[in-house]
């Protein structure tokens, strides 16, 4: 690897002296796991653009930065009450500040029956074997450097479990905040989510905050869906434009498990979001809808990797991208229908809108089929705003900027309309409108 990669050097240095385990809990297997992964990270380094999975996203500028790893004051930093709420999301609330769990900001007093929420530290101190098997899941090659970095560095995380047969009605709010500090911070956190057989959960995963100083964060989520479990997951990301955020989700779906997912990516300077899904059980279903909207100099890279491994599994991916100014969007929609996954059904659609000459969206649908009697459809387009529609709206009196915004929200309507809880739909439409640039030329 190259000689000077400050970002990685800092990580390796700190990992060598021993990153504190979750909540300070002692664990020999975890220490060993981390040392092993640290060695791989040191050997492989960060991926460059020769790596197919990082073709459109350069890490060069990020790699040159130095961050302070972990925030010793994260447990005390004040957070305005208004940061903690989303309309209609009124179930239990779990809050992390710079990757550190904040009991004082969370709301876990009225826990619905069947729902267990703890920190990974608590799980570790009770020696739960499940944690070990989850964390020892093999990590892929050099493309997954951040997943590995997270495993080596994560200081805390949430463990969320719904017991067999329980239906959690009120949406749970999982909030990750990055707030303004004097320091350039890096933080790493994890989420382990398990829905046992027949369990149902609605979860809102939410990234927000006020950070004006640069931050670098990685979040790895492991989601295990047992037979007949149902998860409705809404992801809202509106971190400030000072934040570099790398997320990796790893879904396992047992027979007839169903994940319905809506993702809205608005914030961040450099955003990489990897969604890896294994449809392991017969009849499992994975639906993902999403929207990314890089403006200014934002770079947003979405990477789907959906693997059909069992018979009669179904997946659908419907994503929209809007790029303006110098915004750069990347969408990789990878679907593999593995040998034996006969009768699988996979659909992927990605439509994109470019609003300026300097904006860029690279979209790459990749479909590989190794099974029989499969139904699959995929398509991707990059286009411009419909000038006829724009003229029509203006001819009725709508000013240019407003007409454009209306058309952009319309473009995203299909994504917004499915969001749960419904109260978030208008909230997010408004956020989207605010997010789109104020100064738009004809």
């Amino acid at each position, binding site marked *: 690897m190259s000689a000077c990669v400050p970002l990685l050097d800092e990580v390796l240095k700190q990992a060598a002296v021993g990153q504190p385990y979750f909540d300070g809990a002692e664990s020999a297997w975890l220490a060993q796991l981390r040392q092993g992964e640290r060695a791989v990270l040191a050997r492989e380094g960060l991926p460059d653009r020769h790596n197919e999975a990082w073709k459109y996203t350069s890490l060069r500028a990020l790699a040159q930065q130095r961050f302070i790893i972990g925030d010793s004051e994260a447990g005390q930093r004040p957070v305005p009450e208004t940061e903690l709420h989303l309309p209609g999301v009124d179930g239990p609330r779990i809050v992390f500040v710079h990757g550190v769990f904040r009991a004082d900001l969370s709301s876990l007093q009225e826990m619905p029956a069947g729902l267990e929420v703890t920190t990974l530290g608590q799980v570790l101190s009770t020696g739960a074997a499940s944690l070990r098997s989850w964390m020892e899941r093999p990590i892929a090659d050099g493309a997954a450097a951040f997943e590995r970095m997270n495993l080596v560095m994560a200081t805390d995380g949430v463990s969320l479990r719904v017991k067999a047969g329980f239906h959690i009605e009120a949406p749970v709010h999982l909030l990750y905040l990055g707030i303004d500090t004097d320091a350039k911070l890096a933080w790493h956190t994890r989420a382990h989510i398990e829905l046992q057989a027949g369990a149902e959960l609605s979860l809102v995963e939410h990234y927000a905050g006020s950070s004006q100083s640069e931050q670098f964060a990685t979040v790895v989520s492991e989601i295990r869906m047992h037979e007949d479990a149902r998860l409705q997951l809404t992801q809202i990301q509106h971190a400030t434009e000072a934040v570099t955020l790398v997320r990796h989700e790893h879904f396992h779906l047992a027979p007839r498990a169903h994940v319905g997912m809506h993702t809205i990516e608005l914030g961040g300077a450099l955003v990489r979001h990897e969604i890896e899904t294994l449809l392991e059980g017969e009849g499992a279903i994975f639906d993902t809808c999403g929207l990314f909207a890089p403006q200014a100099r934002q770079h947003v890279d979405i990477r789907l990797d959906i693997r059909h491994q069992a018979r009669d599994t179904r997946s659908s991916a419907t994503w929209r991208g809007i790029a303006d100014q110098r915004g750069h969007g990347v969408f990789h929609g990878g679907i593999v229908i593995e040998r034996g996954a006969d009768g699988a059904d996979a659909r992927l659609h990605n439509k994109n809108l470019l609003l300026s000459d300097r904006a860029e969206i690279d979209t790459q649908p990749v479909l590989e089929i190794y099974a029989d009697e499969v139904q699959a459809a995929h398509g991707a387009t990059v286009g411009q705003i419909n000038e006829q529609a724009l003229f029509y709206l203006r001819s009725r009196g709508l000013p*240019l900027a407003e007409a454009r915004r209306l058309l952009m929200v319309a473009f995203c309507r299909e994504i917004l309309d499915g969001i749960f809880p419904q109260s978030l739909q208008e909230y997010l439409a408004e956020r989207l409108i605010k997010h789109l640039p104020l100064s738009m030329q004809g």
Partner: protein
Amino acid sequence: MLQIDNLHVRVAGKDILKGLSLQVQPGEVHAVMGPNGAGKSTLANLLAGHEGYEVMAGSVRFLDRNLLELQPEERAAAGVFLAFQYPVEIPGVNNTYFLRAALNAQRKHRGEQELDSVQFLKLVREKLAILDLAPDLMNRSVNAGFSGGEKKRNEIFQMAVLEPRLAILDETDSGLDIDALKQVAEGVNRQRSADRAFIVVTHYQRLLDYIVPDFVHVLAAGRIVESGTKELAHKLEEHGYAWVAERQLEGADA
């Protein structure tokens, strides 16, 4: 109210209007007829502010302003309305939301009070009744999945809500059966008033049986070659546009 003087317009390098002049006063209904390719739709779109038209010479004044300098939304606020020949389908934009935003944008531009949702819905209900449109149309996306007749009626409905000073109807009769045509004409006739003018662009005389014009102009080869009263439309119907071409030649010879 509207004064078009010696207008020359080029589209994609081709001369379309070649010295067109037309004067419209408040309360008048002018029909502009002509064969395909005469420049009728160019005239309609140009007045509404569509991009891509190059004005080579001449002027257009509307209520003492240079219309050609105004953006489409400024023209709308000043009182120009175009009923499109092909209304655009805009999936995802709610009809009610769009129309209220448009009306309020115009009112704001004119320094008038904006309407709240209660006032707006009252206005909508009044106007829907006039055009015999189903109220559920308002909850749908703009023109999306509308039938041809619904689209045209929706145009006239928007006109009724926006209450323009000058309404330009571009081939509003095209694609309509006789019942829909009568409904649209009835909608237009109810909106005729002493301070509102209409320019009705049409290929066929049929529409003019229901919207009876004060003046009829024949547009051919980029100019108005003949003007008259509604009898001119009947003459055209009888003789066809070839007759106009002959008259044009005679005029040129003279």
